[in-house]
């Protein structure tokens, strides 16, 4: 019996999370939107953005992602994910890696959409 390295750990994790809360947008949905937004901001190929994992470095690692670009990124996240990003939400951790940003976005989506999202 051979033990294969886990090929898609993030995907597997997403499925687990999504199945726990059927009334909320699944983790997969936020993940997909966030990758699309980063693709648009960084002008990358979809394949490149698909390879982002939790440890992929963002702010401070990608020179083109300056403060104006991050501001555009946040504005677009607010529009597409229907969330509001406050000053206090922004910290080094949420901006440093893709995993940090995704965790933040998921948390916001759950908090802000819970009361009104039961019907959709």
């Amino acid at each position, binding site marked *: 019996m051979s033990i294969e390295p886990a090929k898609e750990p993030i995907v597997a994790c997403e499925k687990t999370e999504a199945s726990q809360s059927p009334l909320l947008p699944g983790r997969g949905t936020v993940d997909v939107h966030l990758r699309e*937004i980063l*693709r*648009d*901001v*960084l*002008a990358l190929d979809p394949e490149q953005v698909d390879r982002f994992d939790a440890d992929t470095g963002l702010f401070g690692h*990608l020179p*083109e*992602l*300056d*403060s*104006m*670009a*991050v*501001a*555009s*990124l*946040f*504005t*677009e996240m607010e529009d597409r994910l229907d969330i509001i990003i406050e*000053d206090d939400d*922004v910290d080094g951790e949420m901006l440093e890696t893709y995993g940090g940003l995704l965790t933040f976005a998921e948390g916001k989506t759950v908090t802000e959409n819970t009361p009104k999202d039961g019907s959709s």
Partner: protein
Amino acid sequence: MALTFDGNREDRLLVLPALFDEANKMRRLTVEVMHRLDLSGVDTFLPDFTGCNESLQPLAQQTLANWRAGAEAAAAHFNPTHVFSIRAGCLLAPPHLPGWRYAATTGAKALRSLLRARTIAAREAGKTEKTDDLAILARKDGIELVGWPIGAALFAGLEQAVANSDGQQAAIEQSDIGGAGLWLRAEAGEDPEQADMLAAIIAMGMLEP
């Protein structure tokens, strides 16, 4: 100052550019659309708002009202048949001209992005700034936001500004032309296919018999 493709032709389009940081990111696409329209037989006129691009006036002294008056003056001078406005440029489009608004944004959203860019840059520098505090300061004294000195009057004007939507000018959304909005790009880019689509939508509207 204005960039023009003027062949003294019948179909004449006033082009009102995006503002601030987005003006730089959208400049190439804007001019590419104008070039394509020139080849289709449409004259185009892209003025600089006072205080912007090659204008020698100080940006800090501009107001929403004088930018709108500038757009009206450009309309009087170039005698366009239509207007095509982009992003926050849509806030300044003369309402009497038919035409198109591309991916219109509100003044409040435009300011929000600039304010946020400033607070993020401040955080990087080890300072803490709050967007709400900055907005209060800006309404009173004006403010410099990531390199753009914005006077109190312009700030207050933009906070309330929304594009005129009385039906003369059709909305073109990003989903109508495909691809991702170039104003989102971290670095200014171009997209020939988007320029083709925009020029096609405008040319079909202007040149139909």
